[in-house]
């Protein structure tokens, strides 16, 4: 009984946030996804060529979906009201993280399926790698937002890392976002684990600031 009440609560909070805070971001991510075939050829590509649009473009949805997670309560006037309620704000942030990550996974899966139907060589490793890329990029910006409270700066942090990857590629070792284009899948797990760490630190930092 308590479990079902709890589940209902989670769903109700998620529903409101999905509608009011997530929808515009999802729309922008869908636009990115739909632009990808317009910018890149996605027919009959081998795995290395398939990795190109996934790593270089689709992974940007991570920035769009993850970075603004703390933004709805950026306004002090809203923050105090939400913070004074029984349900902890951290709980809300975690719900947002979960549905944002689910959003990334769903969009990557949809696009990968589309590429598969176009005759591309899609593997689970490619799909997981793209998700890891997206989460890593987004979680960097999320951490910046937790620390600075400044959304443009947070986007800049993610974008800067993206630019560094274009300029330096393999010099970034196991944190190279574009490794799959060279057939290297080792960074995927590093990027994924790092993204989980960044997200955890972000939520903790936000919680710490709230309890000052």
């Amino acid at each position, binding site marked *: 009984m308590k479990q079902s009440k709890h589940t209902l609560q989670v769903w109700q909070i998620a529903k409101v946030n999905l509608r009011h805070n997530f929808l515009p971001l999802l729309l*922008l991510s869908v636009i990115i996804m739909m632009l990808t075939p317009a910018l890149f050829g996605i027919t009959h590509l081998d795995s290395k060529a398939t990795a*190109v649009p996934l790593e*270089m473009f689709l992974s940007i949805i991570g920035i769009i979906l993850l970075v603004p997670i703390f933004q709805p309560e950026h306004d002090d006037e809203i923050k105090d009201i939400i913070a004074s309620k029984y349900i902890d704000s951290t709980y809300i942030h975690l719900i947002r993280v979960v549905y944002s990550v689910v959003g990334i996974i769903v969009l990557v899966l949809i696009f990968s399926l589309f590429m598969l139907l176009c005759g591309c060589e899609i593997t689970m490793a490619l799909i997981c790698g793209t998700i890891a890329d997206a989460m890593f990029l987004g979680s960097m910006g999320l951490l910046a937002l937790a620390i600075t409270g400044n959304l*443009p*700066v947070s986007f*800049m942090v993610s974008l800067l890392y993206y630019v560094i990857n274009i300029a330096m590629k393999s010099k970034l070792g196991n944190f190279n976002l574009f490794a799959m284009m060279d057939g290297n899948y080792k960074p995927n797990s590093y990027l994924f684990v790092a993204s989980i760490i960044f997200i955890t630190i972000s939520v903790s930092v936000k919680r710490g600031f709230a309890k000052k």
Partner: protein
Amino acid sequence: MLLGKEIRKTVLSLTFVAFIIALLVMTISQDVLNFSDEVIVFPKQGADYGIQQKEVPELIMPAAFSSLCEEFAANEYIAYPIGFYKSVKLNDTDREKMADIISTLSGAEQEDGSIIIGKDDEVSETKGDIEVTLSDDISYEEFRACMKQADDLIGGGSNYSENNLLNYSYVAVTYEEAIENYNLIASKDKFTGAYARLFCDFVGIILSIFPVFIAVTVCLKDRRAKMNELIYARKTSSFKLILTRYFSVIIAAMLPTIILAYISNISVWGQYSGMSLDYLAPLKYTIGWLMPSVMISAAIGMFFTELTGTPIAIAIQGLWWFIDINVGVSKLRGVHTLFELAPRHNALRNTQTFLDEFNTLAANRLIIVGAALLLVIATVIIYEQKRRGELSGYETIKTHIAGLANRKSKSAA
């Protein structure tokens, strides 16, 4: 003074600090702050002077034709329209047109999209099984025209585009050419110009996107602090306010860039003692090459932020930037187009290419500056409308769209 205050506001923001960090990270990671290891010396007889792309018809024509026939047989053409690999398959109509082109170049007949060799032979459909050769009667101009047609059929960015044809023709640089290149650098670039150009090539990548964040922050600051009405009610004209803010963003972005450009350039001054150097080269290049990119980036930031009241400008500029830097990959040797955002010239030498492309580059930079200024004027108009309560950004757009939808449904009814 208003400009001083706006610059202060801009510079004392976290966004600006992040911009400086981005600039430093880029310049340090790409090793463009210290060129002392890359001294340009007078060529020695018998050394290896590298290779160069050179338009040698005797090399280009057979190689490009052979490649075209191979791709025709497989009906699979490789293209890089925005710098990314794309595999193009032609439909029947276009395939016939392509067959026409090959027929023109080889003299062989074509029928229903297939090339006929001899009387009854037909070209095999599998890759590599081509026996068609380039006709001796075809001039290079005719050949190029046919290649352009082929590239258009493929959709651009193919191996047969004007730019990519040169990829079939690499030749070794001769001693005389090496001396000529050196003399060009000494006389036209005065050495420092070459380094300044290379600096701009790398830094342009950052400067064509990051100023949009500064501009968005500047525009959203009033809204965040709930100061809009306080400012709207003041005497200062919208023109003065917007222009001052715009210039504060430009100055804030350009000052550190100029400083870094000089740091980069000064690193080689000592290597050319006794030679005639252009000490103003870093200034000329940062202003002429980089500033237009900063201007358009900031202008787009201000325009869309004032129009919508949201940071959507970041996504818009981001998209243009993304396409531009990837298209730029195919133009690294210094070829320019009229609407590029961040001109590339990823070579220390290649002065001749720079000189050849100078007019296009200058036209491009002027077009970009013109577009930026137009956007700024449009921003002033929007701001003035908002000040009079006739426009409230995104809400007005939504209302207009809703209004249009209503009108449509009414007329349908």
